[in-house]
C-alpha cells in the first residue's frame, strides 16, 4: 500500500462518517463533493481513466449541482414560509 | 435461425423504443401505441411459447456477434415463454381495465408518461425473464425499480409521494445488496454469465475454499430480492404503495413487478447455485419459515384492514409468502408450485384491483368497506370479477388459486416430516384466514345496506373495463379448468431449467 492511497482511502471513510455526524446540510453536500473528487483520483490510481472522467463530470459535477439546487429550492420554500408567517402577524 | 426465435429480443428492445416514443406523444396517442405494442408482444410471446412447446428444447439467443462469455445472451425455454406471455397479457388487461382511472388520476399533460413507464416496465420484465447474465439482470432490475416507483407516484397526491419515497428507498437498499452479491460473486468466480458461474461455483463448493463468501452471497441475494419482492419482515412499504396508487398501477405492481424479482431469485438459486448448494446452505429453511409467516401474518394484516385496496395489498404479502414457501420446500415439486403460484397470482390479483377500481367509480371514489357496500349490485361485472378472484384466492376448486394449493400440498407431502406438518398447517391457516377476510367482502359487495347517496347508482360500462374484467374471469376459470396443461408446461420448463 502506498501512503498516498492509504490517505485517500482514509479520507473517503472520514467523509462518509462525517456526513452522518454533521448537522449542517450544506456542509454535508460539500463533503460529498470532496468525496467524489477523491474517488476520481482513486479511479486513476486503479488504472481506470474512463471512470475518473465520468466520476469527475457526473459525481462531483452534476450530482453535486443537483444537491445544491435541491437545497436552494428547499431554502426558498422555507423563506416563503417565514415571509408568510410575518405577513400573518402584521395583519393581526 | 427461424424468425420466431428473434421475437424475445424484439419484445425487449422495441418495448424500450415504444416507451421513448410514448414520452413525446400526446396522452391518447401514447395510449394507442402502448396498447397496440402490448398486444403485439403478447402475440409474439405466445408464438414463442408454441415454438418452444413444439421443439421441447430451450435455445440460446446471443445478443450480438459474439458467443456467451464474451457477449450478452438470452435464454428462451418453455417456462420463460409462458411467463412472458402471461405477464404481457396481464399488463395489457390491467391497463385496459384501469384506463379511465389513469386519465382521471394523472395530470393531463403527463398521462403519456404513464404509458412510457408501462412500456419500460414491460421491457425490463421481459429482460428479467429471459436474461442469462447477472449484470444484465441488475441493469433491468434498476429500470424496473424506477419505473414501478414512477407508476405509484403518477397519481399525484401527498400519500402517493410518501409511499413512493419509502418504496424507492427500500428498493434501493435491496438493489444495493443484490449488486453487492453480484460483485462478490464476480470477485471469486470471475464470471457474469449464469451457466459459467454455476460451473465455477460447483468447483469452489467442492473444494470448500470460499465457503463463507458463498454463504454471504446467497444471503445477500436472498435478502436483497426479498426486500424488493416484499417478503414478510420487509413488507412494510407495500400496503402504502399498492394501496394508494391508481387501479392499473396497483394491479401491475402486485401482479407483475413483485414476480419479476422472484423470477430473478429463482434463476439465481437454480441456475447459478443449483439445488444441492441451496439445500446444504440451509437458505431454504429461512425462505420456508418467512414464507409461512408471511402467509399467516399477511392475512392477519388484511383481516384488520377496513380499506379495500390496502386489504388487497396485504393479501399480496400473503400470496408472495406462498411463492417463498414453495421455494423453501427445496424440492422440484415445491419449485413447480412456486412457479404456478407466480402465474396464478399474476392473473388473479390484477383482476381484484381492477374490480376494486370499478367499485370506487360507483362509490364516489371511496374505497372503505362502508362506502363500497352494495357496489357489486351497482357494478355487476366488477362484482362478478371480484367474486371469482376472491374465490380463487381462497382456493375453491375450479378456480386458478386451487391449483396452487394442490401443488403446494403435493410438494409439502413429499418433503420431510417436520416441513410437511408445518407447511400443511400454514396452508390450512392461511386458507382459513383468506376465507375470513374475502367472504365478508363478497357479502358486503352484494348487501342491500348501501349508503344512501350511492343507492341506485348504475355504472355505465366502458368497453375497455368490461372487456378486461370478462377476460380476467375467463382466464381465471380457464386456468382452473385446463390446469394440467399449464402445470405440465411449467414442469417441462423447469426440466429445461436444469433442475
Amino acid at each position: 500500500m502506498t501512503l498516498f492511497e492509504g490517505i485517500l482511502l482514509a479520507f473517503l471513510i472520514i467523509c462518509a462518517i462525517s456526513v452522518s455526524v454533521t448537522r449542517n446540510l450544506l456542509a454535508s453536500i460539500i463533503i460529498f463533493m470532496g468525496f467524489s473528487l477523491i474517488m476520481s483520483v482513486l479511479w486513476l490510481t486503479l488504472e481506470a481513466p474512463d471512470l475518473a472522467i465520468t466520476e469527475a463530470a457526473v459525481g462531483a459535477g452534476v450530482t453535486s449541482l443537483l444537491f445544491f439546487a435541491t437545497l436552494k429550492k428547499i431554502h426558498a420554500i422555507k423563506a416563503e414560509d417565514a415571509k408568510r408567517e410575518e405577513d400573518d402577524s402584521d395583519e393581526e | 435461425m427461424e424468425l420466431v426465435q428473434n421475437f424475445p429480443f424484439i419484445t425487449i428492445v422495441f418495448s424500450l423504443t415504444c416507451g421513448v416514443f410514448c414520452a413525446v406523444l400526446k396522452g391518447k396517442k401514447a395510449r394507442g401505441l402502448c396498447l397496440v405494442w402490448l398486444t403485439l408482444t403478447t402475440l409474439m410471446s405466445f408464438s414463442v411459447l408454441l415454438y418452444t412447446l413444439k421443439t421441447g428444447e430451450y435455445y440460446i439467443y446471443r445478443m450480438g456477434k459474439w458467443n456467451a462469455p464474451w457477449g450478452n445472451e438470452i435464454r428462451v425455454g418453455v417456462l420463460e415463454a409462458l411467463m412472458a406471455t402471461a405477464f404481457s397479457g396481464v399488463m395489457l388487461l390491467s391497463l385496459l381495465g384501469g384506463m379511465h382511472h389513469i386519465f382521471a388520476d394523472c395530470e393531463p399533460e403527463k398521462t403519456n408518461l404513464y404509458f412510457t413507464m408501462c412500456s419500460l416496465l414491460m421491457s425490463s420484465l421481459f429482460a428479467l425473464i429471459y436474461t442469462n447474465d447477472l449484470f444484465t439482470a441488475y441493469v433491468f432490475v434498476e429500470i424496473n425499480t424506477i419505473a414501478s416507483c414512477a407508476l405509484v407516484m403518477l397519481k399525484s397526491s401527498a400519500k402517493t409521494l410518501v409511499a413512493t419515497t419509502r418504496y424507492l428507498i427500500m428498493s434501493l437498499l435491496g438493489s444495493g445488496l443484490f449488486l453487492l452479491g453480484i460483485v462478490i460473486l464476480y470477485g471469486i468466480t470471475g464470471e457474469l454469465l449464469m451457466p459459467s458461474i454455476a460451473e465455477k461455483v460447483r468447483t469452489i463448493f467442492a473444494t470448500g475454499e470460499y465457503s463463507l463468501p458463498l454463504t454471504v452471497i446467497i444471503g445477500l441475494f436472498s435478502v436483497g430480492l426479498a426486500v424488493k419482492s416484499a417478503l414478510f419482515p420487509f413488507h412494510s412499504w407495500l400496503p402504502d404503495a399498492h394501496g394508494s396508487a391508481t387501479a392499473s398501477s396497483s394491479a401491475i405492481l402486485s401482479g407483475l413487478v413483485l414476480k419479476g424479482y422472484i423470477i430473478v431469485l429463482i434463476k439465481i438459486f437454480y441456475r447459478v447455485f443449483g439445488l444441492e448448494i441451496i439445500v446444504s446452505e440451509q437458505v431454504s429453511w429461512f425462505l420456508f419459515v418467512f414464507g409461512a409467516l408471511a402467509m399467516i401474518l399477511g392475512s392477519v394484516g388484511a383481516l384488520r384492514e377496513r380499506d379495500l385496496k390496502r386489504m388487497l395489498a396485504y393479501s399480496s404479502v400473503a400470496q408472495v409468502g406462498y411463492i417463498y414457501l414453495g421455494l423453501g420446500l427445496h424440492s422440484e415439486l415445491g419449485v413447480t408450485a412456486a412457479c404456478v403460484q407466480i402465474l396464478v397470482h399474476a392473473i388473479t390479483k390484477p383482476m381484484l384491483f381492477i374490480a376494486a377500481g370499478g367499485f370506487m367509480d360507483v362509490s364516489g371514489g371511496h374505497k372503505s368497506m362502508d362506502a363500497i357496500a352494495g357496489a357489486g349490485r351497482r357494478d355487476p361485472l366488477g362484482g362478478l370479477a371480484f367474486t371469482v378472484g376472491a374465490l380463487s384466492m381462497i382456493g375453491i376448486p375450479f378456480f386458478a388459486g386451487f391449483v396452487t394449493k394442490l401443488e403446494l400440498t403435493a410438494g409439502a407431502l413429499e418433503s420431510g416430516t417436520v416441513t410437511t406438518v408445518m407447511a400443511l398447517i400454514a396452508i390450512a391457516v392461511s386458507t382459513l384466514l383468506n376465507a375470513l377476510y374475502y367472504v365478508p367482502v363478497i357479502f358486503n359487495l352484494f348487501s342491500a345496506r348501501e349508503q344512501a347517496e350511492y343507492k341506485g347508482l348504475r355504472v355505465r360500462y366502458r368497453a375497455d373495463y368490461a372487456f378486461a374484467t370478462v377476460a380476467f374471469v375467463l382466464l381465471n376459470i380457464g386456468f382452473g379448468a385446463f390446469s394440467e396443461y399449464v402445470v405440465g408446461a411449467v414442469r417441462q420448463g423447469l426440466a429445461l431449467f436444469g433442475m
Partner: protein
Amino acid sequence: MRSDGFLARLVSFVESGSFREEDYTLSPAQKDTLDTDIPENRWLHSVQHAEKPVGARLMSWFSQKGFELFRDLYRIASVFICVTLIGVLLSVVSFLPAFGSAENPAVNEVVERYVSKSIEETGATNAVAGMISAYRGFDTLGEAHVLFVAACSVIVLLRVDPSERKRGKLLDPDRVGGDMDYEPNSDLILRKAAKILVPLAFIFGLYVILNGTSSPGGGFSGGAIMGAGLILNSVAFGFKRTERFFGDEMYHAVKTACLTVYALLMAYFIYMGANGWDDHVWLGIPGGIVSGGLILPINIAVGFEVACTMYCFYALFRKGGL
C-alpha cells in the same frame, strides 16, 4: 451589480448556520398547525385538507413521546446494524483473493479476448469502450434507458406547465424572493469565466465523445461534460440565454432521436449478429476518430442524450421546466 458574490453569500449561510438540519424539521408549534391545516400543494391543483379528528391532540402527544423513545433506540440500533454489516463483509473480504494479483479468478479467457481481440473485432483501441458498446452492448442499451426513465420521473415530479409558471407560482425564476433570488445573475467573475469555460466544456465534451473509441471516455462521460457546460451557461447568463437555442421541443427532439437511433443501431447489430449474418459495418482505422464501427455513432447518440438529460435535470430543479 450586486456587491457580494455568490460565494460570499454561501459562506455567510454556512456561518449563520441557516442550513442546519434542525431548520428543516418541524417545530412543535408548526406541527400543530400542520396537523390541521396543511397548505395546498403549490405545484398541483389537487387541494387536500386533512380532516381534524377528535382527540387529535392527545394522540399527537402520545406519538410524540413514543417518537422520542424510539429515536434513542434508533440511534443505538443503527450503529449496531452498521458494525454488524461491516463485520460480516470484512470477514468476507479476508477470504477473497489478494488485491492486485494476476492470479485473480477474475482474470480469465474473457478478459484476454477483450484486450487482445478488441481492435480486430470491434475496431476500438480502448478495450473498455469496445466492451461496453459492442461486446456487452445490450447492458449499455439498458443503462441509457435507466437515465431516460429517471428523466421522465423527474419530469413527472417537477415539471410545471409554462402557462402556470407565468402566473406567479412559487418557483417562478424571475420573482423576487423566489428560488432564483440567490442566483448570481450579475456576477462579473462568473460571467467572464463562463465566457471562456462554456465553449471549452463543449469542445472538450465533443472531443471525449468522438475519441471514445481510442482514448478514455465515451458517450456517458463526454455527454456529462457537455451537460455541465450547458448548466454553466444557464447559471452564468440566466436561463433565457440557454432557452434561445435549447428549449422544451429541442430537448424532446434530441432525446427521442438519440435513443431511437441508438436502439435501432443496436437492434440491427444484434439481429445480424444473432442470425450469423455479416453486418457490413466498416470498422474504420483503429486509433482514429472514425473507428470502432457502430461504437462511434452509438457514442454520439448516447453523448447527446446524456447532455440533454443532465441539463434537463438541472432546469427542472431550478425552474420546473426547460
